[in-house]
């Protein structure tokens, strides 16, 4: 298929339909409303259903019901709406249901702003809802990668019976770039024999549930979840690195911020600086091991985010004291400039190249 120019939010919808998702439950919120609008227009054409719920809370619980009934299903929102969905997300994780959740982040806390931000990193990677659970969190940096991760995200969700979150910011939702819809590598997915579709009189009832009132049973369930998360950590880390074996300074950034860092790096290279980049694509599982490849000559790691410093915690865990870690961020919908990043990198150089 030829390349088409698409807005990020609409590309998400097109990719989801391409991945066989026929059901979308959502609620409008800027800056992702083009996605539910797109789905309301396109899903009926493929025999699917778009439903605008009465709230984000209802929408995510509709996703729970539909996923429990064995169908590929998704929802999307932006930061404050994702907060409302946390109840449903932890139930979905607890009941081990596959689904795709898109968060096109905006500034916070509270109602915040509608401009791009990355302030929900903690919420996405550390929980957000109650209990010991994990989402697979994928952070695309351009519209093509967004499309690819949406399509693969559904497969990851089905393979592990786990919710997958696509974490983008307002910029990637709003911008247009060329995309091509390709078929990703096929994963072996098993039948959803656990789904509630009616017993048909042929088997015992299936039950979708996250309640284990007996402590021993709940601990067993938690151990099983942790074993699953361990396998995901082994298999699903995604990261892009640039020049880290030979860099004096390494920038760690994800999503659109990483693109700004790339612009800064190419400018710095013209001035003779050696700067590398680690761009985590999976934020959970986090690519901790990638930081082990950084050369010993590295003077420091600069973490750049559109928040007050969240992923920097994971960077510190990853380098484990091997290098000094510094942070530069903008918040409130302000976007870091390449020049500001360049200035920080030069500070780490301390004047000498």
């Amino acid at each position, binding site marked *: 298929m030829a390349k088409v120019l698409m807005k990020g939010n609409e590309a998400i919808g097109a990719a989801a339909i391409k991945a066989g998702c026929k059901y979308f439950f959502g609620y409008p919120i800027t800056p992702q409303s083009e996605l539910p609008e797109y789905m309301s227009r396109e899903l009926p054409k493929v025999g699917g259903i778009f439903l605008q719920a009465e709230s984000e809370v209802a929408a995510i619980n509709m996703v729970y019901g539909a996923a429990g009934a064995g169908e590929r299903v998704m929802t999307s929102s932006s930061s404050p709406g994702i907060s409302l969905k946390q109840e449903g997300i932890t139930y979905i994780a607890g009941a081990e249901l596959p689904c795709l959740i898109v968060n096109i982040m905006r500034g916070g806390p509270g109602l915040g702003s509608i401009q791009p931000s990355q302030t929900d990193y903690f919420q996405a990677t550390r929980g957000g809802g109650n209990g010991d659970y994990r989402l697979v969190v994928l952070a695309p940096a351009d519209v093509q990668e967004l499309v690819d991760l949406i399509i693969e995200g559904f497969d990851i969700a089905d393979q592990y019976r786990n919710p997958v979150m696509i974490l983008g910011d307002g910029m990637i939702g709003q911008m247009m770039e060329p995309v091509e819809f390709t078929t990703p590598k096929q994963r072996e997915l098993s039948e959803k024999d656990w789904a509630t579709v009616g017993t*048909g009189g042929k088997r015992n009832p299936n039950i979708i549930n996250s309640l284990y009132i007996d402590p021993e049973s709940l601990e067993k369930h938690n151990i099983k979840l942790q074993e699953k998360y361990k396998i995901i950590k082994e298999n699903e880390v995604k990261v892009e690195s640039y020049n880290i074996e030979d860099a004096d300074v390494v920038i760690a950034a994800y999503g659109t911020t990483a693109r700004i860092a790339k612009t800064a790096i190419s400018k710095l290279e013209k001035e003779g600086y050696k700067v590398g980049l680690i761009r985590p694509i999976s934020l959970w599982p986090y690519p901790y091991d990638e930081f082990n490849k950084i050369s010993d000559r590295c003077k420091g790691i600069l973490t750049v985010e559109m928040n007050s410093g969240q992923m920097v915690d994971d960077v510190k865990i990853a380098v484990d004291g091997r290098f000094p870690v510094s942070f530069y961020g903008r918040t409130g919908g302000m976007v870091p400039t390449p020049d500001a990043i360049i200035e920080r990198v030069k500070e780490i150089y301390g004047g000498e190249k």
Partner: protein
Amino acid sequence: MTVVFQKTKGLTDNPTHYCPGCTHGIIHRLVGEVLEELGVLDNAIGVAPVGCSVFAYNYFNCDMQQAAHGRAPAVATGIKRVRPDNFVFTYQGDGDLASIGTAEIVHAAHRGEKISTVFVNNAIYGMTGGQMAPTTLIGQKATTAPYGRDEAHSGRPIRISEMLSTIHGAKFVERVAVNTPANIRKAKKAIKECFQIQLEGKGFGIVEVLSTCPTNWGLTPEEAMKWLEDNMIPYYPLGNFRRPEEVE
């Protein structure tokens, strides 16, 4: 030996956890019998709430999902929209449906979701230990209303059936009670009619069942039946509020 009575296939053999004298058992049986009699047991997907009937998924002999507190109508919506040929019902208490889940039940009814709801109203939060519900009567004591419900402080008890019967998408609304054999028979009839509305594809249906909570009311099971008759029925009148032919 002639079998004159046997347990419905609509219920599993799991012993229930309900308190002695609690009427959830009766209501479960009625629902189970109706599922069996309508021939939808193999096709049904039920949704259990949070509250006393949280374990309903262990008792109904069909596929079940357990929903977050109050969200059963949203979960049922998700199921029914992707599996329109399955029979989908929710079983919810008054804390679940009439308090935390009002948005979900109102909008499921409003959209005319083709699901059926059994709403068990015992005027109290049972599972958490007798706290005040939105349905608790004026003057009725609860662990969070130790001096009795005061209208000036908490408002009057909410009448769900009356409220939902103003919504166009709700095609069947009836309030019944399970305090006497005659009322139990009427309750079963209402549940059956309500479920048939869904099978005929007509829209949303709900049966509100006035129920007892001897444990938290501090009464014997027999006294509780009497209390329901004397106190609940006068405020929550029994009867049908809506049938499809009345909706235009």
